[in-house]
C-alpha cells in the first residue's frame, strides 16, 4: 500500500463515500490509485466548487465533507471555500497535493505555501513527511474538524509521499495535547442560568448555527416552552425550530423579521446559544439589548464576550448544555406567559407580505411560490445577495440542516455547488438552490458536473440583471449612483443550461414558478428556472453601523393584500 492508497483507505474507514476534487500535476499519483478504488469522486469544473460542494455535503448530512485539489493554483482555488467553511464552522477536510519534498521552498512549478496561506482560515493543518503517518493524520483531522467548534482541516501531501510504500496501515492518532474542547456545561453556571431565566419577565432566545451543528433542535424548542420565550435565529440558525411555529420569530438582523428586530430590545434576559453576535445580527452594539442580562452558551470560549458583554457564560455543546438546563427547569417551569403572548400577537399582526401580482414578478411572490413548492424535507441552499435575504426573510424553514447558506464569509457562487454536495449527501431529499444571476454566473460551469453525474439539483434563479444587494445599497445610501452593478449582457440562461444538456425554463408570470418547481422537485429532475424579477424591489434593512431598530425601507403586511380573483386563481391558493 502506498501513500495515496492510504489516503483513500483512511477516508473510507472514516465513513466517507464521496469526495469532490480536480486533478493536477502533484496529485496524479493519488488519482492513479483512486482509479482502482471504490471511493466515489465527483469531478467538479473548478476547485472552488469542490470545497463548496464538500461543505454542502457536510452541512446537509452532518458528516465531514472532503475536497481535494492539486498544488499551486488548485490549492489556492480552494481557499475561498476553506474560508467559507471556517467562518460558518463547517467540518471540512481539504487535501492538497504538494511538490516533492526536496523542491519545497525552491519556487518549484505549481508550488505555493498553502499551509501558510490557509493558516488563518483552518482549525489545523498537516503535511505528512512519511506515508506511514497518513492514516493517523486523516483520523486526527476528522476528529479536529468535527468536534468542538467544527471547522476545516488542511492536509498537504507532497507528491513523493503519495507514492511511498507504507510499512503498515495503522489508523492511529496524532497526539494533540492542546486540543480539549469543553462539551459539558459547568453545573453551577447552569443553576444560575435557570434562576436568571425564571426571574426574567421577558426572556428571549437567540439561536445560531451552533445549535444546528449540535443537533439541538428538540432541546431549543423544549427550553423555549419551559420558559415561555420566543426564539429568533441568526441566518445560520434558520430551521432549528419550525419557523411556522408560534414560538419562532424568524431571522434577526440587518434584514431580519420585524417581530424579531423590534422585540429583542425589550427583553430583560437574552439566552444566546451557539451564535457569535456578528455585526449583521446585532447592528450597533450600543443600541443592542440595552436592558438585558445576557446568558451565552457556546462551545468556543473565544466567542463569549467577544462582541457582546455577557453576564453568564456557559462553555459547552449546545445540545448537552440545554439538556442540563432543561433538567434544572423541568421541575419548576415558568408560569409567566404574558410576554410570549404579546410577541405571538405581534407576529400574527405583522405577517410579511408575500402576495403580489405585479409583472415583472416581485421577489416576495417568487419566494411564496417556492415555499408552496417545497416540503419540509426539501434542502434549500442559497447563494449570496439580495435573493439570499429574500429567502432568509420570507421562506419558512421547518427542520435543521434544510437551509444551507453562506453566512459569515458571504461567498457569491456558494449556493449552486453547495446544492450539488447536499444532493450527493442526501440523494433521497429534494434539493433546491436559490441563486441570483450574478452569483450563478460565477459557478455556472458546474452545470456540466450535474449533467455528468446525473445530480438532479433544481435551480431557482432570481434574475434581476443586477448585483442586487450592492444595487440596493447604491439606491439607499449612494444617491442612486449605480456603479458597476448592472450585469449588462447576461447570457441567455435557458440556452446556457441547454448547451450543458440541462433543462431550463424562463418564467415571467405569476404562478409559473410554483408549477415548474413543484413538478421538478417531485420528479427529481435537474432544471434551471430563470425567473425574471423586479430590480427595484428592496428588502427592509438597518443601515451598516446603524442600530437594530433603524429602518431603511418599510415593512409590508400580508393582511393588506387584496388580490384580484385572476391572480388568486393562477396561484392555486395556499
Amino acid at each position, binding site marked *: 500500500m502506498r501513500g495515496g492508497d492510504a489516503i483513500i483507505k483512511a477516508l473510507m474507514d472514516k465513513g466517507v463515500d464521496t469526495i469532490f476534487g480536480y486533478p493536477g500535476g502533484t496529485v496524479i499519483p493519488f488519482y492513479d490509485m483512486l482509479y482502482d478504488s471504490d471511493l466515489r469522486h465527483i469531478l467538479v469544473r473548478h476547485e472552488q466548487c469542490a470545497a463548496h460542494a464538500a461543505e454542502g455535503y457536510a452541512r446537509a448530512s452532518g458528516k465531514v465533507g472532503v475536497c481535494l485539489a492539486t498544488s499551486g493554483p488548485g490549492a489556492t482555488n480552494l481557499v475561498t471555500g476553506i474560508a467559507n467553511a471556517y467562518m460558518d464552522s463547517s467540518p471540512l477536510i481539504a487535501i492538497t497535493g504538494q511538490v516533492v519534498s526536496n523542491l519545497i521552498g525552491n519556487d518549484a512549478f505549481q508550488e505555493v505555501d498553502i499551509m501558510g496561506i490557509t493558516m488563518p482560515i483552518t482549525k489545523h493543518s498537516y503535511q505528512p513527511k512519511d506515508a506511514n503517518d497518513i492514516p493517523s493524520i486523516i483520523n486526527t483531522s476528522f476528529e479536529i474538524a468535527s468536534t468542538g467548534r467544527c471547522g476545516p482541516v488542511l492536509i498537504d501531501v507532497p507528491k513523493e509521499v503519495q507514492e511511498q510504500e507504507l510499512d503498515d496501515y495503522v489508523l492511529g492518532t496524532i497526539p494533540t*495535547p*492542546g486540543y480539549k474542547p469543553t462539551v459539558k456545561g459547568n453545573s453551577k453556571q447552569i443553576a444560575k442560568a435557570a434562576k436568571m431565566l425564571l426571574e426574567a419577565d421577558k426572556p428571549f432566545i437567540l439561536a445560531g448555527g451552533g445549535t444546528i451543528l449540535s443537533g439541538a433542535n428538540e432541546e431549543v424548542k423544549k427550553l423555549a416552552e419551559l420558559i415561555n420565550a420566543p426564539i429568533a435565529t441568526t441566518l445560520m440558525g434558520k430551521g432549528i425550530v419550525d419557523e411556522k411555529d408560534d414560538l419562532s420569530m424568524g431571522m434577526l438582523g440587518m434584514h431580519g423579521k420585524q417581530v424579531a428586530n423590534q422585540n429583542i430590545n425589550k427583553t430583560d434576559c437574552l439566552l444566546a446559544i451557539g451564535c457569535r453576535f456578528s455585526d449583521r445580527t446585532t447592528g450597533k452594539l450600543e443600541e443592542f439589548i440595552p436592558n438585558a442580562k445576557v446568558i451565552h452558551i457556546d462551545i468556543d470560549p473565544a466567542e463569549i464576550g467577544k462582541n457582546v458583554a455577557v453576564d453568564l457564560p456557559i462553555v459547552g455543546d449546545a445540545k448537552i448544555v440545554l439538556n442540563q438546563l432543561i433538567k434544572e427547569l423541568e421541575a419548576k417551569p415558568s408560569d409567566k406567559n404574558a410576554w410570549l403572548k404579546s410577541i405571538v400577537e405581534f407576529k400574527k399582526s405583522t405577517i410579511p407580505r408575500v402576495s403580489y401580482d405585479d409583472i415583472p414578478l416581485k421577489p416576495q411572490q417568487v419566494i411564496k411560490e417556492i415555499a408552496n413548492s417545497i416540503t419540509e424535507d426539501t434542502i434549500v441552499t442559497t447563494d449570496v445577495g439580495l435573493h439570499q435575504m429574500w429567502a432568509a426573510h420570507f421562506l419558512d424553514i421547518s427542520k435543521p440542516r434544510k437551509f444551507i447558506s453562506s453566512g459569515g464569509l458571504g461567498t457569491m457562487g456558494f449556493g449552486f455547488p453547495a446544492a450539488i454536495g447536499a444532493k450527493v449527501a442526501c440523494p433521497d431529499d429534494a434539493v433546491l438552490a436559490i441563486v441570483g444571476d450574478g452569483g450563478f454566473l460565477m459557478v455556472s460551469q458546474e452545470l456540466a458536473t450535474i449533467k455528468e453525474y446525473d445530480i438532479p439539483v433544481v435551480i431557482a434563479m432570481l434574475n434581476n440583471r443586477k448585483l442586487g444587494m450592492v444595487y440596493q445599497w447604491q439606491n439607499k445610501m449612494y444617491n442612486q449612483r449605480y456603479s458597476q452593478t448592472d450585469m449588462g449582457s447576461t447570457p441567455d440562461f435557458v440556452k446556457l443550461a441547454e448547451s450543458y444538456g440541462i433543462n431550463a425554463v424562463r418564467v415571467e408570470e405569476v404562478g409559473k414558478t410554483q408549477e415548474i418547481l413543484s413538478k421538478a422537485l417531485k420528479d427529481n429532475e435537474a432544471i434551471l428556472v430563470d425567473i425574471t424579477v423586479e430590480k427595484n424591489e428592496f428588502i427592509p434593512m438597518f443601515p451598516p453601523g446603524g442600530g437594530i431598530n433603524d429602518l431603511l425601507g418599510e415593512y409590508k403586511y400580508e393582511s393588506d393584500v387584496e388580490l384580484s380573483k385572476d391572480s388568486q386563481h393562477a396561484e392555486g391558493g395556499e
Partner: protein
Amino acid sequence: MSEKSHVISTLVEHKPGVLQNVASLLNRRGFNIDSITVGTSEVEGLARMVFVVKGDEKVLEQVIKQLHKLVDVVKIKDLDPDYVLKRELCLVKVKTTREKSRSEIIEYADIFKAKIIDVCDDFITMEVTGNPEKIDSFLRLLKPFGIKKIARTGPTAIARGHH
C-alpha cells in the same frame, strides 16, 4: 483603554510552523508583539514560548482565548507582574577608541556583572543578563562611549515560587 505590557508564557508543540501561527494570530487580532523567545521546555516535544505584548485587557482576553484554539498550543499563562522573574541576554559591542575608555567600561561591566567575551583594538564586546530594565541602564551608561552593535534576546520569564 489602558495599554499594559503583559508577559504571556505558553507551552507549545515543538514543531515547524507553530511560531508563525502564534505570531500571525497575535498580529491578526491587533496585538503588538514586543518580543518573543522560544526554547525547549521541561517536557519533551514541547517548547516554551514567552512573549511580551502590549494591549488592553479586553483584547488580551480575546487573544488568550484565540491562542487556546490553536491545536499546537498546549498551555497559556498570563504571568502576574508581581510574581514574574524576567531575564534577558544582551550582547553589546562598544568603542574603546577614546583614552581610558576601556578601563571605565570594565568598571561598569563589573558593577553590572557583565562578562567580557571579546576584545580588539577598537572594541570591547560584553554579555550581560538580567531583567530588561537592568540591561537598559547598562546600555544607557555605555552610550557615551559609542555603541557599535546591540543584540538582545528579549526577555524570557518564569513565575516565582509556587505561582
